[in-house]
């Protein structure tokens, strides 16, 4: 092989950037020295390009190809050495360029094709879809489609251009369905620090969609929490603030259950020991217990010992007190009670106006009636007239005068609930007897509980736990005790309330177990409220704790005392002497951080912030999301 044959004077200068190459060379024949033209036609059909000089055509074949040929150019200037044309081929560079253009074309075609498709019918082929939605969001957006979250979707090119220059906040759209206990765009959905400016948050900071079946939520690390929180620390074991002194018992229980006295006193008592639970889980329901381990129902865990005590504590609604004089008009009473007229039966009655009046009762008036009539319960001179008027009107109308009196003290009528089950005829009969200054003798002795009149009193005997009349009377007593302007009336309301709330004498003994709490109202006063149910822990909404998991790990029977240590010295019951639920003493010692740290430590159990803390405040859904708009089955009216 001649190494010098590519010298500049012996060969053509190869131009690889030319778009075509010789067709003869492509067939592995000797390529012509002229090569193809730029337009892709063969440039080698003639050996040279003759030149017109002094009216003569001259051959211009280069010396390296043999110099001017013997024949020379023809009369019209055509080369005498003609060759058939070849079919030049595209150079690699051109093919590469064409393929690149084809690639762009394919992408544009794909985009155009996907934009032209109906997005609902062929969403799988959409080049706008960055991935499948999570199960929950997929269901809720199947009608609206992408525009449920993306405002620009389906708005056309103009909408797209607008969207480029407009800030899009997808989080706003999240709040179309989701709601929280506070503002959605604030950290922890709450105005936690009004003293300093805190960056607004967006849902998409943590929640990412289009990642498949399950929603992708960013796991908050300690560093991320530290970015906003003033108290910065590395992990639970390294720098986490100590638990507060009262942790985890910040507010008073709604049920007065003295663990100390029950565990140390009553359950050891041979009288009750058979009924006593063997361990904590006999009373507390640990299955699926989350932050709190709710106790069982009254019937399940308390009734064995306490049920019989409820119906022993009765309410005295009315008592015939000692009257200093009889002010009841006999004829009116006789008409009301269908007695014979006075003139006809004077002798039979054996009484005359002249005789000195001797009251059949020597008792005081009942506190309830004293409050209702606003009279002192122990001053006959003061209550003579109003009480006897009440008796006369009861003899005439039964329960109506009483109901009128009760409703007169509350903004809304409540007597129907309070006097539920009170037989007007019984009340009328009792009033008639008392009008005649006689004891009322019921036809039969009380057997079944409820309202009854006996001798000098109208009483109510609760039927058992959750007695609605008893509950209503307790609530009534609390309501009227905080709503009186008159000092005397207020004192009487308090006296009545104290009697009804008394653990020993109060109706049903409700307040022996149920706490009474002063709640804050928007009006600025502190109305009292009975905690009828077991109170769900509503404070510390950002703390999460799963009792059930811990109990399963530590053992069902003996795990509770590991953390909950009974404080025998604590004066638990004194906490319930006031109505302030914040001031109280727990039955148990507070839990220290170190206790949790025994397991949640470095290289042991997970100690991420989100293990115990939740980010959102009262997350929920808007009504539209919860209610079925077009139910398949309608309940017949």
């Amino acid at each position, binding site marked *: 092989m001649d190494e010098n044959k590519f010298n500049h004077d012996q060969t053509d200068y190869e131009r690889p950037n030319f778009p075509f190459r010789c067709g003869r*060379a492509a067939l592995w024949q000797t390529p012509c020295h002229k090569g193809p033209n730029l337009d892709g036609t063969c440039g080698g059909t003639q050996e040279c390009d003759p030149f017109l000089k002094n009216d003569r055509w001259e051959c211009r074949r280069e010396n390296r190809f043999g110099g001017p040929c013997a024949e020379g150019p023809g009369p019209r200037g055509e080369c005498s050495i003609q060759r058939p044309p070849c079919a030049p081929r595209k150079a*690699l560079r051109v*093919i590469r360029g064409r393929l690149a253009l084809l690639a*762009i074309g394919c992408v544009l075609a794909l985009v155009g094709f996907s934009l032209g498709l109906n997005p609902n019918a062929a969403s799988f082929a959409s080049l706008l879809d960055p991935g499948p939605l999570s199960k929950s969001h997929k269901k809720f957006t199947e009608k609206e489609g992408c525009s449920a979250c993306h405002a620009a979707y389906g708005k056309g090119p103009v909408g797209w251009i607008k969207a*480029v220059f407009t800030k899009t906040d997808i989080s706003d759209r999240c709040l179309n369905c989701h709601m929280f206990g506070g503002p959605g765009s604030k950290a922890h959905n709450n105005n936690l620090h009004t003293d300093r400016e805190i960056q607004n948050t967006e849902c998409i900071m943590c929640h990412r969609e289009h990642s498949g079946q399950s929603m992708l939520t960013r796991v908050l690390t300690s560093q*991320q929490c530290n970015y906003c929180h003033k108290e910065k620390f590395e992990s639970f074991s390294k720098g986490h603030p100590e638990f507060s002194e009262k942790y985890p018992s910040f507010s008073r229980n709604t049920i007065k259950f003295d663990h100390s006295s029950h565990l140390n006193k009553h359950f050891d008592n041979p009288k009750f020991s058979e009924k006593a639970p063997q361990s904590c889980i006999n009373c507390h329901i640990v299955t699926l217990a989350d932050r709190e381990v709710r106790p069982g129902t009254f019937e399940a865990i308390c009734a064995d010992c306490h049920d019989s005590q409820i119906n022993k504590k009765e309410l005295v609604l009315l008592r015939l007190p000692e009257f200093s004089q009889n002010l009841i008009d006999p004829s009116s009473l006789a008409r009301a009670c269908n007695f014979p007229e006075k003139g006809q039966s004077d002798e039979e009655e054996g009484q005359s106006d002249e005789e000195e009046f001797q009251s059949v009762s020597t008792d005081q008036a009942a506190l309830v009636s004293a409050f209702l009539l606003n009279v002192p319960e122990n001053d006959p001179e003061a209550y003579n007239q109003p009480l006897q008027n009440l008796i006369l009107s009861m003899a005439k109308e039964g329960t109506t005068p009483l109901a009128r009196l009760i409703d007169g003290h509350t903004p809304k009528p409540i007597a129907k609930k309070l006097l539920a089950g009170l037989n007007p005829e019984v009340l009328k009969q009792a009033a008639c007897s008392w009008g005649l200054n006689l004891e009322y003798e019921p036809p039969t002795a009380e057997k079944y509980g409820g309202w009854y009149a006996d001798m000098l009193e109208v009483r109510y005997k609760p039927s058992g736990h959750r007695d609605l009349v008893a509950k209503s009377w307790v609530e009534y007593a609390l309501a009227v005790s905080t709503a009186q302007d008159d000092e005397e009336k207020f004192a009487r309301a308090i006296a009545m309330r104290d009697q009804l709330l008394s653990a020993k004498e109060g109706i049903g003994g409700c307040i022996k177990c149920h706490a009474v709490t002063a709640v804050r109202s928007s009006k600025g006063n502190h109305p009292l409220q009975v905690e009828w149910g077991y109170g769900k822990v509503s404070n510390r909404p950002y703390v999460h704790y799963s009792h059930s998991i811990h109990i399963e790990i530590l053992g069902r029977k003996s795990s509770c005392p590991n953390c909950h240590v009974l404080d025998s010295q604590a004066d638990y019951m004194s906490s319930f002497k006031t109505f302030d639920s914040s001031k109280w003493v727990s039955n148990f010692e507070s839990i220290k951080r170190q206790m949790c740290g025994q397991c949640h430590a470095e290289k042991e159990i997970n100690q991420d912030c989100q293990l115990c803390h939740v980010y959102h405040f009262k997350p929920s859904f808007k009504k539209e999301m919860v209610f079925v708009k077009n139910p398949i089955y309608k309940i017949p009216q």
Partner: protein
Amino acid sequence: MTKAWGYIITAFIFFLLIWIWTLQINNVLGYSAFISGGALLVTIAFLSLFNVRKRLSFLLSAPVHQWFLLHAVGGFLALFLFWLHTGVFWPQGLYTQILAVLFYGATLSGILGLIMEKIYPNFLTRIGLECIYERIPQEIADLRNKAECLILECTKETDSDTLAQHYLETLRWFFQRPRFFINHIFGGQNAQHWVRQQCYISERFLNEKERGYLDQLFILADTKRKIDCHYFVQTLLKGWLLVHVPLAVAVLAMVFWHLIVIQVFFL
């Protein structure tokens, strides 16, 4: 080599900085994808400069081997930035999957090209012959003409057509065009063996004079074998760009679409 390590370390530091930056953005609950995506976009733009460097020679005057080195290091950097950006190996959703397919395709073809660029030039040097790719057809045609002239001369000088018959039956096929493509690109010696075998077969049927011609024919065939090797290897060295460049262009087109989608629907 020192320069290559310099580029690799620079790319590594760049990636490390971006990674730390994204971690910091993550810590403040920001959108770290904007950082990694921005870095990826810049890297891809830099990679695409490799193709236009000739048109912008007044700006980008570095030698091509440096450009190639930067392109290769930048390609690997882009791959790691891509993973940092997506957070997964395989994204979900049709358009992101198409983008991923194209990106992985461009990256893999690039890696394949890089491997070839590292292996084949040394291989070609070892052949002991240099040949310009565009002139290979002419070289083959020249060799064929020489071989045929040699055979004609041999027939004329020796009054024997044994060598000519043998040429027509065997070596003519070899001289027509480049042969043994697969074997050549894997560095095999099948072509060499084949040529030798054809010469050995005929040698014992030739007289002394003819053997002289056969030796000359063998030299021509051996040169042709080397040129074939050049042709196939250089075709491969140029041909892989037919895959890499269109894929890279498609990636750029999809990146542009991705930016539009993000601008319209997310920002």
